[in-house]
């Protein structure tokens, strides 16, 4: 309960702070639209030459793209800024200030930053998703909607855990900026359903770097592809990811000797 209040307070401060810089909003919208245009051009090119890609229609891939943009916005608004700050503080020995506070240190380092304007990507993604869904002519049952929201949340939690793990590696190896670059490149694979990738890549994108759970599986929920075993598997894997990332973070924090004190 205390943790939720804490997160809420940080969120309020971050939003108030960002609202001062309104021009950034328009720049962000422009950037979101550019990234949308690139995605649409890519789709249009592919579907100039074929009518389905590994069993996915153009419209279904539009849904995948909507979720990809939406999730990317969430990562850049809420996850990445916190992890970048954590990484920097570990490197510079400033993490003491967070660790000595009377709150759960993992919660604290995960909620301190929030880039409000990045939510433009979330909005653009949601619009794309909405348009694609209404074009598909499907109706959304309550069960389907709940399953979609559930897997979307699980996907976000898995991505968060993954980030926390690679960021925590900074406790042992100091320079991890390049690993972050690597993640950004790999996340772009989520633009397409992971089923099209060769086996070794598909398995890595599912279990090593949970891009599949963040994008493809929510899209499966909306297109009637999601099976109960996948849903339960996702749940189990989310719990596993959360547990192991917390363990790694705690282990690192215990090993950590600040430089400032």
């Amino acid at each position, binding site marked *: 309960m205390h943790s939720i209040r804490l997160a809420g307070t940080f969120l309020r401060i971050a939003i108030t702070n960002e609202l001062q810089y309104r021009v950034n909003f328009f720049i962000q919208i422009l950037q979101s639209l550019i990234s949308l245009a690139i995605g649409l051009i890519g789709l249009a090119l592919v579907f100039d030459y074929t009518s389905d890609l590994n069993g996915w229609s153009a419209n279904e891939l539009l849904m995948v793209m909507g979720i990809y943009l939406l999730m990317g916005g969430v990562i850049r608004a809420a996850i990445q800024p916190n992890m970048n700050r954590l990484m920097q503080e570990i490197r510079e020995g400033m993490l003491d200030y967070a660790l000595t506070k009377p709150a759960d240190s993992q919660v604290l380092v995960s909620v301190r930053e929030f880039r409000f304007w990045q939510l433009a990507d979330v909005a653009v993604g949601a619009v794309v998703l909405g348009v694609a869904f209404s074009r598909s002519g499907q109706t959304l049952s309550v069960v389907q909607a709940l399953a979609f929201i559930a897997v979307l949340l699980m996907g976000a939690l898995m991505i968060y855990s993954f980030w926390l793990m690679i960021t925590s590696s900074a406790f042992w190896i100091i320079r991890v900026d390049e690993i972050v*670059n690597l993640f950004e490149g790999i996340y772009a694979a989520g633009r397409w359903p992971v089923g099209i990738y060769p086996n070794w890549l598909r398995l890595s994108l599912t279990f090593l770097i949970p891009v599949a759970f963040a994008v493809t599986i929510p899209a499966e929920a909306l297109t009637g592809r999601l099976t109960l075993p996948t849903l339960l598997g996702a749940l189990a894997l989310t719990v596993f990811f959360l547990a192991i990332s917390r363990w790694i973070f705690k282990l690192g924090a215990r090993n950590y000797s600040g430089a400032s004190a």
Partner: protein
Amino acid sequence: MRRVLDFYAQFMRLSIQEQFQYRVANYFYMIGMIAEPVIYLVVWSTVAEAQGGQVGGYTPGEFAAYYIVWTLVRNMNLVFTPYGWEYRIQKGQLSMELLRPMHPIHNDVAYFAGWKVVVIVLWIPLAIFLAWIFKPTLNPTLIQGVVFFFAIWGAYLIRTMSLSLLGMITFWTTRVGALYELYFALELVLSGRLVPMTLMPAWVQQVAAYLPFQWTFFFPIEALVGNLPTQQLLYGLGMQVLWITIGIIAVNIMWRFGIRRFSAVGN
């Protein structure tokens, strides 16, 4: 002229030594870059297979060759970025460089050219690995190899000029991130970075013919993996020279006007 060449030789040697020290960081960076072409390659191979083995004249093996050579060309295309110019102008770092007896852009060209030597050496094992996984179809002739060698340096110079121009806009405005994004998006579509230009709709190809972009991606790659006749290969190199010349003239003009606006911010 002797003086300039000496400068280049020295500066390149310096950056080669410097960058070899950071080989692990350089490697991580290169590996991060591989995700992009691998995604394109997988998508287009899937399309080709669904279309009965080829799409737009490309088989999966030819796509593999295209996107593997892509990785080297992309690395050659990395130059001093507009963000670097923004930083250099905003922070007034340029003041220091202005004190030197040579145009600061020589610094950038020489430094990055040296770095490219390191990049090419590091790229070779990576290319072998990718070739082992994706099985490219690639049998270049000697002349194709020679033209490719010159074309990647031509691409490097064209992109240096165009990004310097873009960066120098910062003389007038202080923040231009959104404009750069727009430029990069155009480049992605019009250069052959996203897909080989021949897969683009005809009107896009016509537009691209009047722009420098395709000479920095599509032409160097196609010189090696395609089967362009010798005449076309030489024509391509000629176009590169033309764009480099236009670039140099434009950079000089823009520099002359821009530098008047520069009032050393910072120290």
